[in-house]
């Protein structure tokens, strides 16, 4: 079985790099399979759950910042996601699909937050400049925020988190065909916005 940390490391390298100037690589650790860690979390191991959160939390946070627009809101949604994940973890049938499952919960919680605080989706004005982010990144964020939430979910899951169409569909509870059409619409809208 593929070691849990090795897979996380591999996935981490595939997704967005950390922005820290002195970025250090994710290092390998113990020989635990993802499924085993998830199973133990399902059985009530707090430590197993914490290790899952530690492994996936920052990618989830990045997804949520781009999804909800503000870092502070993203952290709130992250906390709500973790609460929901812990509660419903026993219902997850395939532990290997933990990550898309978790991201799906996050997308739902982000939608809930949007409904509660409509219209809240706006860029965090402090976030980019405080961290020295280039302005073209800011433009991408602006374009993302302008997308309808359903399209934004598909874009972020498919192209930021690198989920397959099937995983994206499972995470969002929609059909693969819907993922394809939403991704296509989103790509057209983004091209238009960034021209």
């Amino acid at each position: 079985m593929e070691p849990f940390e090795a897979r996380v490391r591999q996935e981490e390298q595939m997704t967005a790099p950390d922005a820290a100037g002195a970025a250090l690589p994710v290092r390998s650790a113990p020989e635990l399979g993802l499924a085993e860690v998830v199973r133990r979390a399902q059985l009530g191991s707090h430590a197993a759950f914490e290790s899952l959160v530690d492994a996936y939390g920052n990618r989830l946070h990045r997804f949520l910042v781009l999804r909800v627009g503000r870092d502070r809101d993203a952290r709130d949604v992250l906390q709500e996601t973790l609460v929901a994940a812990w509660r419903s973890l026993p219902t997850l049938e395939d532990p290997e699909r933990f990550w898309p499952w978790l991201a799906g919960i996050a997308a739902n919680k982000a939608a809930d937050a949007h409904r509660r605080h409509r219209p809240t989706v706006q860029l965090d004005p402090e976030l980019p400049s405080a961290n020295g982010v280039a302005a073209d990144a800011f433009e991408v964020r602006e374009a993302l925020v302008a997308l309808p939430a359903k399209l934004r979910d598909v874009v972020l899951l498919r192209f930021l988190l690198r989920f397959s169409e099937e995983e994206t569909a499972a995470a969002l509870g929609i059909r693969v065909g819907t993922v394809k059409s939403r991704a296509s619409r989103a790509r057209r809208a983004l091209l238009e916005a960034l021209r």
Partner: protein
Amino acid sequence: MSPGRDALDERVLRRLLDRAAEGIEPVGAGELSRAAHAASAREDREHVLQLAGRGAPARRSSRPARWAAALAATLVLALLGGIGLGRQLTPVAESVEAPVLPTLAPGFAPAGAWTVVDEGIDVPPGTRAVLAANVPLDGPGEQLELVPGRVLAELPEPGIVIAVVGRVATEEEQGEDAPLRLADGARDTLWAGPAGGERPLAEYALRGRHGGLELDVRVYFGTAEPAREELAVAQAQLDRLVVVAAASQVTIAARPASVRWGETIALSGAVAGGRAGERVTIEIRECGSDHWRAHGVTTTTSGGQWFSETTVPINAALRARTESAVSGGVGVVTSPSLTLFTNGRRPYASAGAAQSFWRREVVLQRYDAPRRRWVAVGRSRIHDSGGGGHFVWGQAYFSARLTPGSLYRAVMTDRQTGPCYLAGFSNMARP
């Protein structure tokens, strides 16, 4: 984004999203741990388990308990800056949720060329740490990561950094001291440095036991291939490793250690002895002051852990005090709140902080997209000013005419904000 296409290419989109995600400040390991802990501490889980038809884990057998402990050790290593510094630590104890701060700590006997720091290091609960380097470490009062990324990023070729984390050995682990020998260590390569400019450093991972502490040690060299002489220098320093009574019986860590004025900082730490309900006073020494004053009070929870949230108005050092002990100081740096307004007749920037920036210069910058850099398009000094107490605001008006659709921001350099504030960057605004 070729003009002939009607949709963004998937690979381009991936790159753009990665770029958009750059600069998002990662959630600290401690904050993630607390978030997970808070989520999994909820008591409605058993109900869910029953609904799911899998049966609630009414009592954990000793085996899952061992598993939990082993995973706690996994967590400890994950907390160690993502570097796996505790990679092969065995279970900490049966109680995995509130490890007690050891009263003993690893240290080094004095040696001329070595800098040793054992305070102000952000470490996981239940551990003590010490850093030694033959290059300068960050100044006293500045919080260090257990694996100091900034130091490693600039580590010169003869440079060596040794990071040691220790926890109390369990009963099964008690035994004779196990010496630390580089030759026995697992060698790996660590890539350190700014994104895109990383370089390989040799890393040795060692485990040992000394004076009742289980030790996990990492030795970093400023080169991928350390010479025999460098290995000997590192080994000589490892031979000076000692276990001593911890300098402080109360610890403190701050996350993040760099904030904008008004933002909240999470403080955490532990008190040796592990008692719950012990009073901890947070003290602050602000930039420009020689005196520590009380900043807030909290109490310990199980295992002697304590958590608190606060704000600091200005660059400051914080420390924790109990009835009988005081921690080392941890530095927190602050940038002023700076906001750019472009909707009015003239653009202006508003700066807020605990001190006045009267007559200080603010630069208006426009983003030059083709050259991917910011260009100064106007300068102004802060004139309007008001406020009082811990908040003083000021405004600087610019005469520059803004181009609709361009991106602008305001900046105050550290020469204008220092020494008690970091440089300030405003929001980006597009008129």
